């Protein structure tokens, strides 16, 4: 199916899906970039900067696809929208920890590792599913994203397993981090108000199914690392896919869109 054969509802459902994917990667890349110069060691600085850069590239691809369906260009979608217009998961907009980048940041590496690993696995499952999408242009982009995602997943899985098997302090911090991440997990694999249209048209796989696969993959890993299986339980409280967001996202938008707001046509 190409963009010319879509009805209005189909176009809107597709746009929603593309914005969810793009907004997730965009804010994820922003939070990752905030670690620049602060990561636990120099190799990690290089790695997480690289992953953030890739993810920003992925966001651009999804925004560009949305652009072909009649939305604004990628730069405007990234910088020119208010929080209530954004479709990203709440988990990804949360701050990295206390303090600010400009002041004294005491960011939480355990939380970042858990969030990034859990998100990357969810994203991997989505990209696998999108390779069977009925919307052709999305299939090729998903294929391309998947190639790079292989390395991201390997990276975060390594951190997750190694920290979980490390000292008692590390174990305690990882346990707290998993609990904190699961509090926001509800909307991560969710299409919000557009679930029926997105699934019925086969633009992506059913969210329920993806959730089950995610859990069936993560459960044996967390239990083999000595965590209680109930640690992965969660419920949906607030849904970012429907534009419900936290103060953290408002602050993030104010920071990353500062140049854009000052001069929308600036090149940087």
């Amino acid at each position, binding site marked *: 199916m190409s963009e010319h054969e879509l009805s209005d509802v189909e176009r809107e459902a597709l746009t929603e899906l593309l914005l969810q994917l793009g907004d997730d990667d965009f804010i994820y890349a922003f939070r990752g970039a905030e670690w620049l110069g602060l990561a636990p060691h120099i190799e990690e600085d290089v790695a997480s900067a*690289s*992953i953030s850069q890739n993810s920003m590239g992925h966001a651009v691809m999804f925004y560009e696809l949305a652009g072909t369906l009649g939305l604004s260009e990628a730069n405007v979608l990234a910088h020119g929208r208010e929080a209530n217009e954004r479709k990203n998961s709440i988990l990804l907009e949360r701050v990295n920890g206390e303090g600010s980048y400009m002041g004294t940041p005491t960011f939480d590496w355990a939380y970042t590792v858990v969030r990034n690993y859990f998100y990357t696995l969810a994203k991997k499952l989505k990209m696998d599913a999108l390779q069977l999408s009925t919307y052709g242009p999305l299939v090729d982009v998903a294929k391309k*994203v998947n190639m790079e995602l292989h390395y991201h997943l390997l990276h975060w899985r390594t951190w997750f397993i190694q920290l979980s098997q490390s000292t008692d302090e590390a174990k305690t911090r990882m346990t707290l981090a998993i609990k904190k991440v699961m509090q926001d997990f509800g909307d991560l694999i969710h299409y919000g108000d557009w679930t029926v249209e997105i699934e019925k048209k086969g633009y992506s796989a059913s969210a329920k199914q993806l959730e089950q696969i995610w859990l069936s993959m993560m459960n044996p890993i967390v239990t083999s690392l000595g965590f209680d299986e109930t640690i992965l339980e969660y419920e949906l409280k607030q849904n970012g896919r429907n534009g419900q967001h936290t103060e953290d996202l408002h602050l993030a938008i104010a920071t990353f869109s500062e140049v854009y707001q000052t001069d929308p046509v600036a090149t940087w």
Partner: protein
Amino acid sequence: MTAIIEKNTVLEQLQRVKDPEIDTVSIIDLGMVERIDISVTTIEIEVLPTFLGCPALPIIQKEIELALLSLPGILSVMVRFVHTPPWTSDRITQKGHEGLRAFGIAPPPLFLEADGTWHIDCPYCMSTYVTIENLFGPTACRSIVYCKSCKNPFEAMKPVSTL
């Protein structure tokens, strides 16, 4: 009436468009050029980006335009980045592999092991006695590797495939 420019002439010209960071390999060597359409005064060209977040793309686009506009009779050049088919590292030509090695970068392997690891030879001494220091390097497409034989750190281009 002006004769239509030969495709070979365009390819020769594109050989001059190098990777902005690796001046020993061209976009042809990297297998980035997917389609070339030549009409009388216009050339349309489709290019496959290697890595999605690559910041070098606008530079590459500009250099393609400059290179092709310098051909006699060509008045406009259109460069489009496309994702069909997705670029994979097996598109890099033999010449590309040699160019990467000459720059001190290990080319990506032709085959991946079953567990996803890959075999890297040191581009300086060709030893296989190397360790990966970091899967991620100074650019998204490269890893950092250390050669235990000649004690040189070097970069290796990551394999990317649809498998």
